[in-house]
């Protein structure tokens, strides 16, 4: 796969400039009770790049990415960030490495308000060590004004919010803390067209800032539109990684369904 990759438009992404990838997941394997959910898979991500992860339900893409976000422990393999091997044993380690995740389930505490969710696990405190709600709400209002200017329900529990509003909170949480590596697990699954557009705009904006994004999605069109490369998985194995500029929708679909590389690359 290294043979093709540089002919693409010289984007802002650091790929091809000889720099080390932002993230390299090498030869990752993880199994649950004898079933290999992820089987010797390697993927990488460069700064300012969006890499799509495609595959059927159960193909192992969410499992693979949960290894990176610290939710699962891999059985075999290694993770390198900026070329250096790192240990990611739990979600705290992932956060310490500036890896942020927007989960498909959003992972919000429904009984708390937007501000508490935004800062969950990383609360701002007063000199006395108490949580500083007023300062956090002020920060929350600032970032929500950028992400979703219509958002007003700052004092309601997030269970009272619409799907799009909840998504905004989850996104705000991922981008507020200077993420360098962002994992988005089907970020538009529950959203209407307007909100989907909002997420797409955001992805472009974050890309321009040099953030690397793993985007897990079912929707081939969305991947074609937003991603620079796509890695396709089937039955826990990596089918292949392709440059979006070199493939068509149909190529991607056949990779997903048949588990085969597109014709021109089948050596």
């Amino acid at each position: 796969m290294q043979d093709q990759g540089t002919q693409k438009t010289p984007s802002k992404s650091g790929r091809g400039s000889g720099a080390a990838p932002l993230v390299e997941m090498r030869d990752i394997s993880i199994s649950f009770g004898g079933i290999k959910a992820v089987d010797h898979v390697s993927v990488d991500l460069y700064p300012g790049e969006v890499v799509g992860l495609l595959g059927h339900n159960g193909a192992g893409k969410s499992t693979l990415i949960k290894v990176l976000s610290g939710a699962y422990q891999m059985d075999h393999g290694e993770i390198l960030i900026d070329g250096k091997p790192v240990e990611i044993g739990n979600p705290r380690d992932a956060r310490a490495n500036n890896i942020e995740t927007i989960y498909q389930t959003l992972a919000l505490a429904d009984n708390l308000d937007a501000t508490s969710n935004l800062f969950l696990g990383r609360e701002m405190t007063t000199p006395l060590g108490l949580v500083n709600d007023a300062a956090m709400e002020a920060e929350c209002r600032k970032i929500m004004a950028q992400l979703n200017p219509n958002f007003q329900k700052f004092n309601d529990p997030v269970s009272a919010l619409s799907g799009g509003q909840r998504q905004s909170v989850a996104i705000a949480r991922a981008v507020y803390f200077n993420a360098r590596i962002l994992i988005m697990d089907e970020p538009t699954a529950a959203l209407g067209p307007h909100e989907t557009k909002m997420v797409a705009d955001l992805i472009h904006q974050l890309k321009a800032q040099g953030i690397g994004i793993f985007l897990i999605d079912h929707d081939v069109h969305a991947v074609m539109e937003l991603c620079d490369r796509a890695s396709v998985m089937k039955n826990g194995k990596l089918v292949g990684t392709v440059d979006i500029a070199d493939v068509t929708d149909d190529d991607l679909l056949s990779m997903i369904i048949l588990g085969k590389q597109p014709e021109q690359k089948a050596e």
Partner: protein
Amino acid sequence: MTETSSQPIPEKAKPSLFQQLELDMRLLGMIGAFVILCIGFNIFTDGRFLTPRNLFNLSIQTVSVAIMACGMVFIIVTRHIDLSVGALLATTSAVMAMTQTELLPQVLGMGLNNPATWAITIVVGLFVGTLIGAFHGWMVGYLTIPAFIVTLGGFLVWRNVAWYLTSGQTIGPLDSTFLMFGGTNGTLGTTTSWLFGLFATAIAIWALWSSRRAKAAHGFPVKPVWAEATLAGIIAIAILGYVYIVNSYAIPTRRLQRMFEARGETMPEGLVVGYGIPISVLILIIVAVTLTIVARKTRFGRYIFATGGNPDAAELSGINTRLLTVKIFALMGFLCAVSAVVASARLANHSNDIGTLDELRVIAAAVIGGTALSGGIGTIYGAILGALIMQALQSGMAMVGVDAPFQNIVVGSVLVLAVYIDIVYRKRLGAK
């Protein structure tokens, strides 16, 4: 994405004067229920219920269950349960009874009523309670045994450890200083009570004011000044009203005479001295205020509620939910020991059946106080009010002369009814 970061906060429809107070409707409902209960019993007992004496007794009877109910709120909020609190109270009480009657005076030779006995005893009790609680929490959090099972086992184990430690005997009399934590034997006296009342009122008003100032500093909407003032007024009346009531309960003349005789003085003729705030009630207030601050203003409290709302989200947010479970159960164990001090001091001895059925009273108090068994929701003041309502119901019926079996039938029915009302109320609010 091009919007600037400042946005106007839109004007909502003008709320009614009552809505502007932003009172907790659930709290109002519970206070209402309590007031109706008191007035009802007062009518049926020909005015014996709402006397300073009875209200004083009601408050000292509530303390033990109320302290544990505060801890139970955190347990239930994180979707656990603790069935062992009554048994744990018995074990810590037994340990403290043995410490102050056997270990310190006889084995260590400190003698009876040594001035350090009460302090050492309480430290030992609190340590043992915290340790047992942490052990429960470790089994729940790290060994992932359901809390129901761990504490059901604990219920049997600790009840009988208490029995074994004391050979089933009633241990007494307890240290005379220790007895001051029980209620009637230790009160602040009228002057100190008034000072405490004024101090507490000042703190409450300062808390209201500083929270308002913090909001205003960031330009968030604040309540109108008159609403804050009304709230402050209600709080002041509640605090000072309670002080007035417990100050009006006069120490009986015979007892006062004995107190003077003990100091080798003679009592002036016609002297009337009020009890003032019992030290046990003071302990409850300290526990309640501390835990309310913990719940609302510390990371620990925030994580408790986040874990209750969505355990997976809490874990993914980097919260160590296992260690959190250990801490919550350790806190519960600590509070059981505090309750054990109050309960055994009130009875002036350790009896083998101390704390029997307390686990059910504590859980009922927390649930009546609005703690949701599905997790994520609950308040400390609610649990205390719940304990107060339960105790008022129990002692009110006893005063009216309701037969013992009917008393328990009513209390059980009220528990179920209260939870049903709560479910209906939450549905109306839109499943919050």
